């Protein structure tokens, strides 16, 4: 089994949910590895080993972001929230306040492309 952490009977879950589970578990593992490498590197007394550990940590960050991008592409709520918070500026709480101000946000009308295919 790819994962031991299902909370519901696996036969009740759709393939979509199982794939999302795989991605979320992967993201958790990558972030956990980032945390571990960060702590090990900081505590390490050998400069060469510390450099390797920091290099590995940065690779885990890259892996985490690749998985997060997969999640964003497959879940519109992640997509919307990433759009709101990631790369925003100023206070993050103000970004949230602006978002929940009942329409008084800085977002556009969302017209985008109207190209028609017949």
């Amino acid at each position, binding site marked *: 089994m790819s994962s031991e952490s299902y909370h519901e009977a696996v036969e009740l879950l759709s393939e979509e949910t199982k794939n999302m589970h795989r991605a979320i578990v992967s993201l958790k593992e990558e972030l956990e590895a980032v945390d571990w490498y960060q702590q090990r590197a900081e505590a390490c007394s050998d400069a060469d080993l510390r450099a390797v550990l920091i290099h590995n940590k940065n690779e885990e960050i890259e892996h985490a972001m690749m998985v997060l991008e997969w999640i964003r592409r497959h879940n519109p709520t992640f997509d919307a929230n990433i759009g709101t918070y990631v790369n925003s500026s100023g206070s993050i709480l103000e970004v949230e306040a*602006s978002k929940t101000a*009942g329409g*008084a946000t800085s977002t*556009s*009308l969302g*017209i*985008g492309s*109207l190209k*028609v295919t*017949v």
Partner: protein
Amino acid sequence: MDLLRRELAPVLPEAWEQIDEEARRVLKLHLAARKVVDFSGPHGWKLGCINTGRLKPIQPGPVPNIAHALRESQPLVEVRAAFTIKLIELDFAARGANDLDLGPVIAACERIALAEDGAVFNGFEDAHIRGIIEASPHAPIQVTAAVDWPHAVAKGKESLRRAGVTGPYALALGPKGYDEVTAASDEGYPLRKRIEANLSGPVVWAPALKDGALLLSTRGGDFELTVGQDLSVGYYAHDRENVELFVTESFTFRVLEDKAAILLKRA
């Protein structure tokens, strides 16, 4: 807060919702170019220009034997259509009214849609935009009567094909042409159906086309509308009775393949 400054407006959330919804409805109806050209964006307010990939040689600098060239870019133009609404009218929304008089929103959206489409179809020199009509190297096809539209479309399609431009093709019609194509028939058979059967693309109502219609390929890669901040409603100012708002966007447009469109000119 950003350049729209909506948080400063004395407009209640229920009213913003109705303003935005009405703006969305009108813009989707009136915007024609977005229905037939490629769209890039929205890239946000911070996009000031787009890369054309071109170099422009300039005079040598003070160091000898060094060639100089400037990277060419195309700036985005920012457009705004201001409008004023009575605050008492907007406050009705918070009391449950869902039929606000949003005439000024409609008029502003119509104007800004006309501005975007006008730049795309007819060009806008000060904004560094070359329009599809001026870029087209094909001689316009004259349409002398309503019943000539299907023939003109067939002829236009043939010109595009001969120039190596494949379909699908779309027909963007000015108000007069659109009325004729929609209402008229040829020996009882509706003109629109005859045209659509020959196009494999949409027939689009385009108020910015004054002189007739544009037949263009929608295969992609020929026309590119780049949008920075997409169409949005923002806030200017208010007094005790009125609030001044605006519809805005930033955009530019490029014709990448001149031969991919032909003008059908209604005499």
